[in-house]
């Protein structure tokens, strides 16, 4: 069943479309990878799905009792965060904000949710540690735990392995994959790493000069994939 439907989306800035006529569904349990060259509009698409940026045309429809604000978002790290004095606990807890409304403080249930997500990501022993003193992979796991606090159904990850070494990268992919497989959480990931995308994803959205949305199997035999994969090799 479709959780999110993107209908006739046109994306871009100040009236200049980068991508047009984007149509796809994201179903419960999918593992979707969004791939494409730099500047092709991947991040814009992600912001539009999250409701941070209105589309030029078309709309994003959440259905089946799912709300746009219930997406767990794992953003790319900002400069501000690298030097931010906050404990792991405080950061993960801030993911519970979407059910709060105007209530000023977190309740017991939310604190429990934060603690269990910290544990799920294997970060319990670091719960009181300072975020800026953690390694890149640990920080990413903290942000993943925070994203899990915000959602029970869908994770949206923006290049989650940028700047991580191969071992940590594999661990993060494993974490995400087990969330998808065991917890039945829908995963939408922007990725540069086309190999990993093809290994885990069930569905590929390729945006660029031409747009492809469909299953991995179909993607592998598509024109977009052939051009892109060839390009990817020459880029290293």
């Amino acid at each position, binding site marked *: 069943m479709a959780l999110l439907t993107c209908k006739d989306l046109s994306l871009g800035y100040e009236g200049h479309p980068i991508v047009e006529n984007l149509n796809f569904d994201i179903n419960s349990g999918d593992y979707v990878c969004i791939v494409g060259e730099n500047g092709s509009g991947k991040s814009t698409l992600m*912001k539009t799905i*999250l*409701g*941070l940026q209105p589309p030029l045309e078309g709309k994003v429809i959440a259905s089946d009792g799912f*709300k746009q*604000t*219930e*997406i767990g*978002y794992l*953003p790319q790290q*900002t400069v*501000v*965060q690298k030097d*931010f*004095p*906050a*404990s792991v606990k*405080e*950061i993960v*807890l*801030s*993911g519970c*904000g*979407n059910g*709060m409304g105007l209530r*000023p*403080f*977190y309740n017991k249930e939310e604190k429990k949710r934060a603690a269990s997500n910290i544990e799920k990501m294997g970060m319990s022993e670091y719960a*009181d*540690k*300072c975020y800026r*003193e953690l390694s890149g992979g640990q920080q990413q796991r903290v942000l993943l735990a*925070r994203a899990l606090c*915000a959602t029970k159904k869908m994770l949206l990850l923006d290049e989650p392995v940028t700047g991580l070494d191969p071992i940590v990268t594999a661990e993060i992919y494993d974490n995400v994959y087990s969330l998808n497989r065991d917890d039945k959480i829908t995963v939408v990931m922007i990725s540069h790493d086309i190999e990993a995308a093809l290994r885990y994803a069930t569905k590929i959205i390729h945006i660029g000069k031409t747009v492809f949305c469909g299953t991995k199997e179909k993607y592998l035999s598509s024109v977009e994939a052939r051009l892109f994969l060839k390009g990817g090799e020459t880029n290293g």
Partner: protein
Amino acid sequence: MAELFNKLILYFQYPFVIYALIVGVLIALCSSLLGVTLVLKRFSFIGDGLSHVAFGAMALAAVFDLTNNMPFVLAVTVISAILLLQVGQNAKIKGDAAIAMISVGALAIGYLLLNIFSKSSNISGDVCSTLFGSTSILTLTTTEVWICGVLSVITVAVFIVFYNKIFAVTFDENFARATGTKAGVYNLLIAVIIAVIIVLAMNLVGSLLISALVIFPALSAMRVFKTFRSVTICSAIVSVICAFSGIIVSILAGTPVGSTIVAVDIIVFVLFFILGAIKGGIRK
């Protein structure tokens, strides 16, 4: 030593000294609370810009001979804060440039107005005391103390109630917005609180030194503490202690109140910096 102590006891018999201490401590408390957020959001200069706007408003109030200028200055500063934040997001002139423009503009126009229209015989004295706060804290009326008290309590209450939201918006605005927090509203709230604090703090340290009161305690606390809550609490305590001791020193030594407080803030920052370096060194 005993002589100093006697002098202090003598001073404490005057109500204006007590007022100055109460107001000073309250203002220091408020200004430090948002310091952490401002430093982390790279907003340090908004405080600076707004304080110059407040100076301009004060000059305007002086020209029109308003006896109680605080409500007027407050209104102008709050409106400027909202405009800076709202316009700053989608304007042709980007954030820092807009702030720089407004702040020097307000400073220049304020000084110009004072020079042309003021009936006071000692214009440079007036300007100096508005900019650096010199003696004004010792001449507070009971009404001003009450206004300061009430506004401070409101500021602290608002900060505590919205503490978690402010944290979320400071740490990651996009995430907060994506999960349904009205980040725009909280940014606005932060701006309004800053404006209120600046107008309050003008009495204490004058408009040029306000930024110091806002950012120094936060920066000091960030050297040593690791969680958002402990940094916030520590900067509040540091700020209150610095303001208190600064006022006492300035009374005893006859130095200007504002700059003495800022000097104490700087000393504490250096101490915390060294402490942080030692702590970090041991851990590594």
